[in-house]
């Protein structure tokens, strides 16, 4: 009798999202979404941009109110209790952190004015327990040793990857039972992606549940137990992660082909290889470029060139100075030494807008669009340098200016179609999902009809389909318009497909350079950047 009494009731999942429906100001974004996550497991939520991944995480963590979002149906249960949405603008999320739900928002949202240490401290609730927060901090620094020497550095000075580490570290300070990660692998070098994956396997064993919303499903599937595929606000498929990865829907998320050529570049002549091949004309010439922030050297005597209609990729570990190269080219940063020339014109000392006028367009790691303008409006902004009519002419809407404007609009509509943005044409840019914003940014750069486009991690936050579309757009553009591209990119697949030459940076210095295929296969590059033991790579599954 005593033996049969304890009828084992099934353990409820740690997180149960039941039939959830969410809308932003009346526009439905999620409908009937059901997701279960057990203690000590990792769930991947994948799907294209705009599918509602971020919204799902917002609803679970309670920050929906910050985006004027509202739960209109269903419920979110955590540890057997229904989480009640309170009314005061999203502030309930703080209470949920104390109950053990921590959210890492996309794009490394740190407090830029606070130091790294202060950022971490701000993530530790129950601040009276000093020892506990010190222990949590030690664990975080153990996980991300790169943050150790940066304790007193303002977070605003960190590179994109370092910020991402800090944002994750800050969330871990509360020792969460449920960790929500929005695009955690975005902007991380392959080596760090592997470290983070390893860490997720460890916390999982410790009993923490993890939900990863990711575009790059390969990285998420590598650690996930279960996967949920979102499409247009509903769960299109769910199941064991390996099963999902194998099915049709998973095919879209597998990595692109790796370059197959194995020609080896000699690192000894990296400096020579950073110059354009002799038969081509250099469009961009960077010579002896150095950039220092106080004691920190971001770039150290970098010399490189980009030829006309050439696509050059800059790769390297996080904090290597990749974005700084772009920032120095368009003069957002003032280089400490060295010169940057575009077709013989010295750019150092010019203002960023003057550089743009000379024909250099760029996109950013974090999209920088005019939030309230629609997609076409944002593209028109890019054509500003091409417009001839003065303020008065446009204000009076003289016939000539009207004709000019319609020409510009036509060109923008072409770009909208080229990039497949038609669906979003009239939406304010600020409302679009991260990945879509990045495509719009590329569109703006195209609209400028620049001679050189600087792309900062163009594929970050994009699904493989969208990346594919982007890649085709870039190649098309080069084929038809002789545009040169200088890009910072982590996805080796995309680099291999697009770039003619690769430049590898580490600690602000040139490590290697040369034709793409050979350079990526270079054992030294593999070690510094890819974090794999040197040797032949198995061909990735298609």
């Amino acid at each position, binding site marked *: 009798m005593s033996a049969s009494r304890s009828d084992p009731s099934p353990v409820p999942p740690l997180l149960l999202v039941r039939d959830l429906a969410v809308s932003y100001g009346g526009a439905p974004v999620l409908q009937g979404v059901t997701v279960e996550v057990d203690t000590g497991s990792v769930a991947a939520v994948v799907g294209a941009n705009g599918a509602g991944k971020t919204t799902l995480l917002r609803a679970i963590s309670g920050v929906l109110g910050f985006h004027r979002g509202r739960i209109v149906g269903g419920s979110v249960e955590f540890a057997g209790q229904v989480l009640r949405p309170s009314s005061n603008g999203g502030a309930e999320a703080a209470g949920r952190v104390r109950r053990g739900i921590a959210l890492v928002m996309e794009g490394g949202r740190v407090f830029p004015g606070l130091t790294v240490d202060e950022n971490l401290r701000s993530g530790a609730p129950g601040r009276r327990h000093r020892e506990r927060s010190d222990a949590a901090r030690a664990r975080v620094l153990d996980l991300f040793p790169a943050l150790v020497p940066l304790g007193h550095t303002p977070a605003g000075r960190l590179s994109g990857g370092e910020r991402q580490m800090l944002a994750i570290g800050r969330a871990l300070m509360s020792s969460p039972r449920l960790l929500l990660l929005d695009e955690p692998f975005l902007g991380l070098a392959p080596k760090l992606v592997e470290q983070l994956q390893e860490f997720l396997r460890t916390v999982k064993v410790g009993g923490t549940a993890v939900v990863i919303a990711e575009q790059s499903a390969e990285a998420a599937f590598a650690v996930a137990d279960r996967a949920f595929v979102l499409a247009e606000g509903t769960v299109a498929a769910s199941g064991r992660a390996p099963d999902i990865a194998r099915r049709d829907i998973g095919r879209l998320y597998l990595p692109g082909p790796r370059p197959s050529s194995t020609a080896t570049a000699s690192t000894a002549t990296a400096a020579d290889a950073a110059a354009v091949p002799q038969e081509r004309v250099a469009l961009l010439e960077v010579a002896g470029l150095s950039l220092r922030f106080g004691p920190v050297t971001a770039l150290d005597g970098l010399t490189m060139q980009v030829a006309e209609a050439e696509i050059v990729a800059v790769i390297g570990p996080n904090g290597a100075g990749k974005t700084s190269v772009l920032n120095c080219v368009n003069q957002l940063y003032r280089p400490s030494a060295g010169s940057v020339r575009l077709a013989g014109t010295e750019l150092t000392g010019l203002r960023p807008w003057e550089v743009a006028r000379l024909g250099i367009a760029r996109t950013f790691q974090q999209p920088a669009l005019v939030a309230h303008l629609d997609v076409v409006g944002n593209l028109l902004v890019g054509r500003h340098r091409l417009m001839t009519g003065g303020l008065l002419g446009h204000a009076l809407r003289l016939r000539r200016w009207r004709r000019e404007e319609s020409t510009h609009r036509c060109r923008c509509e072409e770009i909208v179609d080229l990039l497949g943005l038609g669906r979003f044409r009239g939406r304010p840019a600020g409302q679009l999902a991260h990945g879509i914003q990045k495509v719009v940014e590329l569109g703006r750069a195209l609209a400028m009809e620049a001679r050189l486009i600087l792309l*900062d991690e163009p594929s970050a936050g994009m699904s493989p389909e969208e990346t594919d579309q982007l890649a085709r757009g870039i190649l098309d553009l080069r084929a038809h318009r002789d545009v040169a591209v200088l890009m910072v990119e982590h996805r080796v697949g995309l680099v291999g497909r697009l770039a003619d030459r690769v430049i590898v940076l580490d600690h602000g210095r040139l490590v290697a350079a040369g034709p793409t295929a050979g350079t990526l296969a270079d054992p030294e590059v593999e070690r510094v950047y890819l974090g794999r033991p040197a040797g032949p790579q198995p061909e990735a599954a298609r």
Partner: protein
Amino acid sequence: MTKLVQLVFSGVAIGALYGLVALGFVVIYRASHVVNFAHGSFLLLGTYLTYGFHQEIGIAFFPALGLAALAAGAAGLVVERLALRRMVGQPVFAVIMMTIGLAVVIDALVVWKWGAGRLSVGDPWGVSAFRLGGDAGIRVAAVDVARLVAAGAVLAAYALFCRFTALGITMRATASDQEAAVASGIDVGRVHAVCWAIAAAVGTVAGVLLASGPRGIDPTLSAVALAAFPALVLGGVDSPAGAVVGGIMLGLVEVLAAGYLPGLLPGRLGANVHTVVPYLVLLGVLLLRPSGMFGDREQARL
């Protein structure tokens, strides 16, 4: 030369006070992006409370000031909790209108309790002054010394608080990114309440120091908050350091203009021009740096 030194000293002293008043705006603005038009009224309330505790009840001046700062801080806390907290998520404009309403209510309550006449706050230094360097030396008003010391102490305390205490760090985190702060488990409502309390307490100290010396208290004291407005804009509405520097600049310009311009310009123009000069400086600074000298120029790493 003696005149110049005297003017600079009292200019810096009054300027430090302007900075203190501006700090009250900055603290609330940084946390919630609300320009608190009721700040002058909290300052008025705190000053009258000091008068009440000291002159009416008979508590010694400094303890009375401390009590009044605490009481005004508590009033700030209550107002935030009862009125402002419910406005979270509403348009900022509506919230600002609400602070204007609050100002009217608080001013009316003060007049109802203490009347509109001029009272003495009963400060120990009054109108006393001393000379440095003999009879021909520099004349220093005791009230100016008190103003400098008090403003310096309060500003230093605030800076240390922000830098080293856990609550200070959460305040800065909230100022920087509210959503990320909430997602990090920071109770933003509590941070806002603390900011209102700090602003009201700091305002009390500023109000008492303004009313001490020759001026005395009357309900027009709340208008001083408006006089500190140029300091706020000069320094940048979201920068505590800017508030102090802006305040000192404003005080110096005002006092120097009042000291020298009447002799240089004819008649009525000379007699009144010093009230205009701070605004001329303000216009100049805004033309050159629209977000103030220390304001956050939307800094973002790209």
